């Protein structure tokens, strides 16, 4: 049976994994290669590395970090942050990523989705969407506003229509972050995720708000998510992916637990 995926996310700044609330008050959380290997060993189904630097100098550091991280990693590995062109994507793939995550650049130039997909395959293109519910809209959930630049600027798009367009253009997966939930540890946005998951045929990865095991059970059952992403719950030894998955299995969620 297909299982629900638990994805460990590493936010990387200047070659180090960092943790902060909404990218403020960053705390050093360790070496990306070491942490990725540890998460994979402890049962994470996939690793996402998000570069939050995005300066020219930082890009070279990033490629080096991706290379080091990918070296001994034998689970799917996605890299995002600052990928604006096919060439940027190619460099990240050559450094060892299996998928790239694109966000602002896809909104600015939606053809980038198909351009990367044509060369590297749809399975290698994750379109990340940052969305916030719009109380003014007729349907605050389906018409949640999409934001760019790390959530600073509205993109003028609605979440469901943009997710559908991304799929039509050849995205392989959607990584959906609820800006309302992000950083709260109060639970994922199940309604938002379910609305997007029902609207597309490609997998939807839910992000933002993970705090407890029940939150994960909820996003898989009510939120119709195919995968869930979390960063902070795994850091500093709060919990391992394996213990999280063992508890999810008890609540009837199908997860990968090694034989």
């Amino acid at each position, binding site marked *: 049976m297909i299982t629900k995926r638990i994805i460990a996310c590493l936010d990387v700044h200047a070659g180090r994994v960092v943790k902060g609330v909404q990218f403020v008050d960053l705390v050093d959380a360790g070496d990306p290669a070491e942490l990725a290997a540890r998460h994979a060993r402890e049962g994470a189904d996939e690793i996402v590395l998000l570069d939050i630097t995005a300066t020219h100098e930082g890009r070279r550091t990033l490629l080096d970090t991706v290379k080091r991280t990918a070296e001994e990693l034998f689970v*799917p590995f996605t890299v995002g942050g600052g990928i604006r062109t096919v060439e940027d994507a190619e460099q990240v793939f050559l450094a060892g990523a299996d998928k790239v995550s694109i966000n602002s650049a896809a909104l600015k130039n939606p053809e980038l989705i198909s351009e990367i997909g044509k060369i590297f395959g749809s399975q290698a293109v994750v379109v990340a969407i940052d969305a916030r519910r719009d109380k003014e809209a007729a349907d605050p959930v389906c018409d949640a506003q999409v934001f760019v630049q790390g959530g600073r600027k509205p993109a003028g798009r609605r979440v469901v229509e943009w997710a559908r367009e991304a799929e039509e253009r050849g995205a392989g997966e959607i990584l959906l972050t609820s800006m309302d939930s992000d950083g709260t540890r109060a639970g994922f946005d199940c309604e938002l995720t379910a609305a997007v998951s029902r609207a597309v045929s490609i997998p939807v990865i839910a992000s933002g708000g993970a705090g407890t095991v029940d939150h994960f059970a909820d996003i898989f059952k009510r939120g119709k998510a195919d995968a869930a992403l979390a960063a902070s719950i795994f850091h500093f030894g709060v919990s391992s992916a394996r213990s999280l998955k063992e508890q999810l299995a008890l609540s009837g969620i199908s997860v990968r637990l090694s034989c």
Partner: protein
Amino acid sequence: MRVTVIDYKAGNLTSVLKALRHLGVDVTVTDADLAPIESAERIVLPGVGHFAATQRLDATGMTPAIRAAVQRGVPFLGICVGMQWLFAGSTEAPGHAGLGWFAEECTRFPEGGEKVPHVGWNSVTPKADSRLLAGVEPGEFVYFTHSYKAPVTADTAASTEYMQLFASVVERGNVMGVQFHPEKSSEAGLKILRNFLEIPR
């Protein structure tokens, strides 16, 4: 050991090469040159993307070289689309022939049930006599990402269920294929690659 990896310019080979090198083998990549196919001790055909991309194997003359190698008994492993290419063809690219080692055709998952593509970790149920899956327990998880799949036949070495049963591993003689990505399937995947490298000629 010399392993030849075939590049038909559809996607990224980095992960496959990395996994093979991790297992300590000497890897040569070819995208047209036939010599590395002729001298190969093992051949790996990775693959992502569209079935039609495999036409490059015909255009470059690599198909007859591969056919000759497998007839000599060189162990061959197709991965994902590389496995589907071992069949007669796929409804993804009607009119484009595969190698035809297996007579059947690959087809798309049905609409209206679960999501298509099938993406994520799913379990395999191996046949007891599979050499490729020696030591792989029934129910072991591996990583899939595909929309087309091969039917279950007498050559199926492991099956997986997603809406219906499909062949996740095929094996007949020295020709083998896996629908999933062993290079991304953690310890289970590395074990399968290691088994492939250890199969005697």
